[in-house]
């Protein structure tokens, strides 16, 4: 299993990338024949970079995330994180999966603390941090509830708190705001931007909202329909820190328009 030495964390490889996928393909074996999910993916993520991936449903976004997380092996090509070829999850990784996975028998607070408990006993300071995170994500007052007592969006938010609590170097998020209403989502976009600004984690963010991708990212990766290929990568040159108001700017609209247009050209998006 992969294990970098402690000091290597955050150290980019020769190309300056923290995460580097080169010529990666992934085909799932299945009883009814192979399912190609990703083809020829090349992607470098620099340290502290915020990268979003957008693409149609089933195009392989979650698969991509699992490859970077070391949860699935590649069928071809290689995935390197912090200079090392993966053969298991890299160190100091945090992840939010598409489907929230909370333990039924733990309260929300204990579910959030889980990411720490996986490796050691949480300190009181960490408990406080967990409470603060829950509050930040609108779950104050629900710490002592059990998952089945929460709404879908609340469960998802608890998952996000859990990933953030462990303070990873690299964060992978698979449609973390998928179950949230537009209002809460906007709130949390602002919170996440703030958190990223403060901690500068390297972030691979999968979303199905182009607006969200543009708002949050340094670069937006566009993927084609299945089997997934990267069709374009767009650098978002908007000033940071960003406020929600930036979404009303002309540049912002231009980025969104450009991505929409691009997808439309590819026959992915109806205009």
């Amino acid at each position: 299993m992969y294990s970098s030495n402690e000091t290597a964390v955050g150290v980019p490889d020769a190309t300056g990338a923290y995460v580097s996928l080169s010529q990666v393909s992934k085909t799932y074996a299945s009883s009814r024949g192979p399912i190609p999910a990703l083809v020829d993916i090349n992607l470098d993520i620099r340290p502290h970079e915020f990268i979003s991936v957008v693409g149609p449903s089933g195009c392989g976004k979650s698969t991509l995330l699992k490859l970077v997380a070391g949860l699935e092996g590649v069928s071809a090509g290689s995935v390197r994180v912090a200079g090392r070829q993966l053969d298991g999850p890299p160190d100091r990784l945090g992840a939010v999966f598409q489907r929230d996975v909370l333990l039924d028998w733990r309260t929300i607070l204990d579910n959030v603390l889980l990411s720490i408990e996986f490796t050691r006993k949480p300190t009181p300071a960490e408990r406080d941090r967990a409470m603060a995170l829950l509050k930040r994500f609108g779950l104050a007052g629900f710490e002592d509830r059990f998952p089945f007592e929460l709404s879908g969006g609340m469960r998802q938010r608890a998952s996000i708190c859990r990933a953030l609590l462990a303070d990873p170097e690299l964060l992978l998020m698979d449609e973390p705001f998928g179950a949230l209403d537009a209002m809460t989502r906007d709130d949390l976009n602002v919170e996440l931007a703030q958190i990223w600004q403060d901690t500068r984690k390297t972030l691979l963010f999968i979303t199905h909202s182009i607006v969200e991708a543009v708002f949050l990212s340094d670069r937006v990766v566009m993927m084609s329909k299945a089997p997934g290929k990267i069709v374009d990568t767009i650098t978002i040159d908007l000033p940071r820190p960003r406020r929600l108001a930036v979404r009303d700017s002309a540049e912002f609209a231009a980025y969104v328009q450009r991505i929409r247009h691009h997808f439309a050209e590819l026959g992915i998006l109806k205009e």
Partner: protein
Amino acid sequence: MTALLKRLFGGESEARDIVVVLAAALLLWEAGVRIFHPSPLILPAPSMVVVEFLQAPALYLRHLAFTLVMTLFGFVLAVVLGVALAVGIIYSRFLERTVYTLLVALNSIPKVALAPLFVIWMGTGPEPKIAIALMLAIFPIVIDSVLGLRSVDPDMMNLARVSKASSWAVLTKIRFPCALPSLFAGMKVGISLALVGAIVGEFVAGNYGIGFQILVAQGQFDTVRVFVSLLLLGIVGTVLFFLVDYAERLLLPWHVSQRARSDRSAGT
């Protein structure tokens, strides 16, 4: 007292149904015996059984206590060893192929047949009784624990791997709690088998316990006394079972199988 009676017989009480059914069964049995009057050697009336018990309750309870101690020893050992084995089996394919197979083979050998050898090897003390109780109870506990420990949501396992969770953390914080409902199912079967095992142990040697009482009574053609012992076993076994069941309800209120139970109206 009236409050108790009300709890037993008023409303939707669980105890009431049980009492009613048991009473009905006993009445039917009593009536059958009074109508067909079979030889008490073949089937005694429940009234005779109760009278017999009341003639020497201390005797029966003393032997019952001995059997109970053997049972609980065997059961606790079975739970501890069984869970440990199950953990070994899910973590190591080698153990799965070997210990598991040996366990299956051993379990297929009836303990009644093995018990005489146990006595020859271990003597007539408590050891063979505990050993047999343990051997009988451990099997369902291992089988059900293995199923439970394996039935973890794959996404949760992925989360653990990504978080570099220690094997110990995965075991204690995910796999084990997740296996509890299944483990409890195994323990419910196991506690009954431990009691049976203690009796089987007492059957082959020793001068104590309900099993010994049954043997002596059988030797004296005293079917009534055999029935007192069997009934006591039935009662004690039921109580032990529902103690495990109660522990389950206390510990696992979060599990669907329990939620479904406390709120049946929601079921179709």
